[in-house]
């Protein structure tokens, strides 16, 4: 091998490896995006038809379904390793998960507050930071629209209509997954 060929091999291998890792990370966005969309629509429908906001307690079932599904999605025979960017994305969304569940639990059982406003802002921030980490402008813009626009909408919209913001968030997450997957194909 010439020096040029060696450097080209190093660069190509590293690039392919990085792509494989980031492509693998798109699964998480897609999975949670679909789950969020489905849960928000189901809870919206139940709340709308019965008139009872108690159906919101179903949100607590989302992590119970989501985490085993995520574990299943990543448990493949040819396990893809993790790099710095993948790890950072995982940490961003883990922090989002902890904050969302804690704030929701506090709002339901201790200090009543506008949960939609809080969660939608957190969702927008996590999405925006993911875009920054991935250096992807469409994801940054999606996150900003969701976080800032969602905060305003969460105040203006009343009762079950607020749930449609989560539907939008879920769709944006799934779209983020598709963007990441196509970006690193």
């Amino acid at each position, binding site marked *: *091998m*010439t*020096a*040029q060929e*060696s*450097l080209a*091999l*190093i660069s190509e*291998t*590293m690039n*392919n*490896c*990085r792509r*494989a*890792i980031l492509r693998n990370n798109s699964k998480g966005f897609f999975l949670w995006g679909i789950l969020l969309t489905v849960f928000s629509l189901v809870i919206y429908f139940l709340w709308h038809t019965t008139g009872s906001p108690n159906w919101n307690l179903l949100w607590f079932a989302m992590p119970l379904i989501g985490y085993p599904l995520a574990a299943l999605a990543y448990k493949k*025979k*040819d*396990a*893809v*390793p*993790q*790099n710095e960017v993948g790890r950072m994305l995982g940490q961003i969304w883990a922090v989002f998960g902890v904050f969302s569940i804690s704030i929701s639990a506090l709002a339901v059982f201790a200090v009543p507050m506008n949960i939609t406003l809080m969660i939608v802002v957190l969702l927008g921030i996590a999405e925006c930071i993911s875009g920054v980490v991935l250096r992807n402008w469409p994801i940054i813009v999606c996150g900003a629209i969701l976080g800032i626009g969602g905060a305003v909408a969460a105040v203006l919209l009343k009762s079950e209509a607020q749930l449609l913001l989560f539907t939008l968030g879920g769709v944006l997450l799934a779209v983020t997954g598709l963007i990441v997957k196509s970006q690193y194909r």
Partner: protein
Amino acid sequence: MFPKLDPLLHSELRLAVMSVLAGVESADFTFLKAQTGATAGNLSVQIDKLATAGYIAVEKGYKGKMPCTTCRITPAGVEAFDTYVAALKEYLSGGQA
């Protein structure tokens, strides 16, 4: 005077393995095989050579009931890889390898 290239790294497959491991915490044998496009036998031989030189650490275990070999680059491997890349760059800036 050009620096001498590390003969252990100046091999297509070994260099590809080191390039993969340089960017990740650790990697399974199957992932390395997929990324390098090598046969299992050849990859196994080259991994052994890199491990003997102390450039990578190999851990053999099980994932469920399946045997699983995990490789990670060692500090000595990182240093050798960096030195090799620096030497390549010097070759390129100064002429042909």
